[in-house]
């Protein structure tokens, strides 16, 4: 009897260990499949962008024999990538900086001051998160046309600011509200004005939340397509997503050039992502859950 129990005791840890390692292997297998499904479509495109048309047709799975850069030259010239990058960077930076700056000032007053309309104004801003962008495409086009802003370098900046202010204000106010109440009091004692307090105390203290909204705005603006589609039709003013879409539409059979174009447009945002991954994930989850 005793020996039986003992041998059982001896067996069990080994058994569970084995079981555990099998389970671990299974988990890794599933995760690897998930990672491959997630990454391979993009890798496939990047790898094939370096192949000649001929090589791509013969073998689309292996590494390229020699890394051909023709597709890149081709895409860069026909799609005017230089212009697209320049436009995207300008629109994206201008809209992001304006949104965060304007939003931060508004958030400061909404979070640190009591005044009659405070709650109403705040709710009014937050309501913007409920407006579906597509429901405004028609009137936005007419409005921008009537303002004489159609097809100008700054056209897109206004709708981008307007539609991203709500989430920006939402995140910044909830962050600024949490500061202790006596911050301004001591500053006022030292003779600081309201805007001075904002610039030298509140803004530096909000750095983590500012990082979040800057990143969120940057990604949204960089990837935005619908407004650009409706409001911009001058090729010289197109942003990257818009330029890519029309480029692909024109070169439906030139796969190599398409892949090269897509790869080029991927580089900045992927680099941005890998560099700031932690912050981006935090920001996107905050944006998603609260937006």
């Amino acid at each position, binding site marked *: 009897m005793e020996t039986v129990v003992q041998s059982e005791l001896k067996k069990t840890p080994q058994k569970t260990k084995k079981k555990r390692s099998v389970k671990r292997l299974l988990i890794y297998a*599933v*995760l690897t499949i*998930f990672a491959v499904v*997630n*990454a391979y479509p*993009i890798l496939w*495109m990047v790898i094939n962008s370096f192949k000649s048309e001929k090589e791509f047709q013969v073998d*689309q*799975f292996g590494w390229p024999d020699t890394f051909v850069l023709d597709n890149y030259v081709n895409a860069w010239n026909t799609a005017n990538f230089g212009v697209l990058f320049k436009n995207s960077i300008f629109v994206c930076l201008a809209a992001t900086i304006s949104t965060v700056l304007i939003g931060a*000032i*508004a958030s400061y*007053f909404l*979070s640190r*001051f009591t*005044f009659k309309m405070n709650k109403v104004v705040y709710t009014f801003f937050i309501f913007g998160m*409920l407006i*579906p*962008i*597509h*429901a*405004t*495409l*028609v*009137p*936005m086009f*007419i*409005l921008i046309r009537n303002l004489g802003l159609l097809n100008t370098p700054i056209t897109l900046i*206004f*709708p981008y*600011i*307007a*539609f991203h*202010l*709500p989430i920006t*204000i939402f995140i910044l106010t909830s962050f600024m509200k949490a500061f202790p109440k006596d911050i*301004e*009091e001591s500053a*006022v004692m030292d003779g600081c004005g309201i*805007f001075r307090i*904002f610039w030298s105390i509140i803004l530096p203290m909000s750095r983590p939340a500012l990082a979040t909204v800057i990143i969120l705005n940057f990604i949204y603006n960089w*990837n935005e*397509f*619908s407004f650009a*589609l409706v409001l911009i039709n001058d090729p010289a003013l197109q942003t990257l997503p*818009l330029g*890519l*879409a029309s480029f*692909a539409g024109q070169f439906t059979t030139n*796969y190599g050039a*398409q892949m090269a174009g*897509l790869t080029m447009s*991927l580089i900045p*945002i*992927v680099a941005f*992502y890998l560099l700031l*991954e932690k912050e981006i994930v935090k920001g*996107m*989850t905050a944006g*998603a*859950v609260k937006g």
Partner: protein
Amino acid sequence: MHAVGKRRGAIILGLLPALIIYVIFAILPILQSFYYSVMEWDGFSEMTYVGLANFKEIFQDPLFWNSVKNNIFVVLASVFGQVPIALFIALLLNRKLKGLKIFRTIGFLPVVLSTVVISLTWSLIYNSEDGLINGVLRTVGLEGWAQNWLGDTNLAMISVCITVIWQFVGLYLIIFLAALQNIPEEVLEAAKIDGASEWTTTRKIIVPMIWDTVIVAVILCIAGSLKTFDLIYVMTNGGPSHSTEVMALYMFNETFSQLQYGYGSAVSVLIFFFSLILIYLVNKIFGKKMI
């Protein structure tokens, strides 16, 4: 929150820039949608008031109902595709594993990419001649299974939905992971001491504890997929023969290709109400937690 003297001037000055841009470029357009929706207008000549005629016409258009049906299909595919996959992978990732960070990084990558880039990449993957999927099928000897994935009315919607699922699984994965990491260690230890197997712990403790997050994810997923536009616009533009046309796309085509600004605005108003009803349901279920 407290008053640093009642500096009304400063408050107004601080809120004004945000308010002006927000009102002109977000609030005004949505109000104008309502106004245009009762008009017959080609965008250039005189408007004529037609009452609810546009709405009546929309409801009688089988293409509109087709787009509603397709939209519901996208919603269902997203909810039943994205959420379960994301939850499953998150549960697998929620343990001390080597290489966990790599899986997380790759898992979230598609979320930050531009929808246009994703659409174009997947269009190449689905390509009937040289696409990745048909290439794989040919390589493994299933030549007969090769299809025109985006060109077949029966398959196009499913193909599009696979891409939609692929794009956003990472977002919900990260949301779930964050929720899982918030479960206090002691709860899980207590379960372990009580001899609960991992499966039981997952089913009876972990999943119920993050159930709120799961529901939030479901709602986000519904709201997000109601807004699907860019992806389908670039991949199929609603075709072949309207088989992938969703509401936003129907609105866009009616307005900008047929120059029916009144009619398109009426569709916009319907989209807006669809979204509002959803938000109402969200608030009903979660109290004021979401907004």
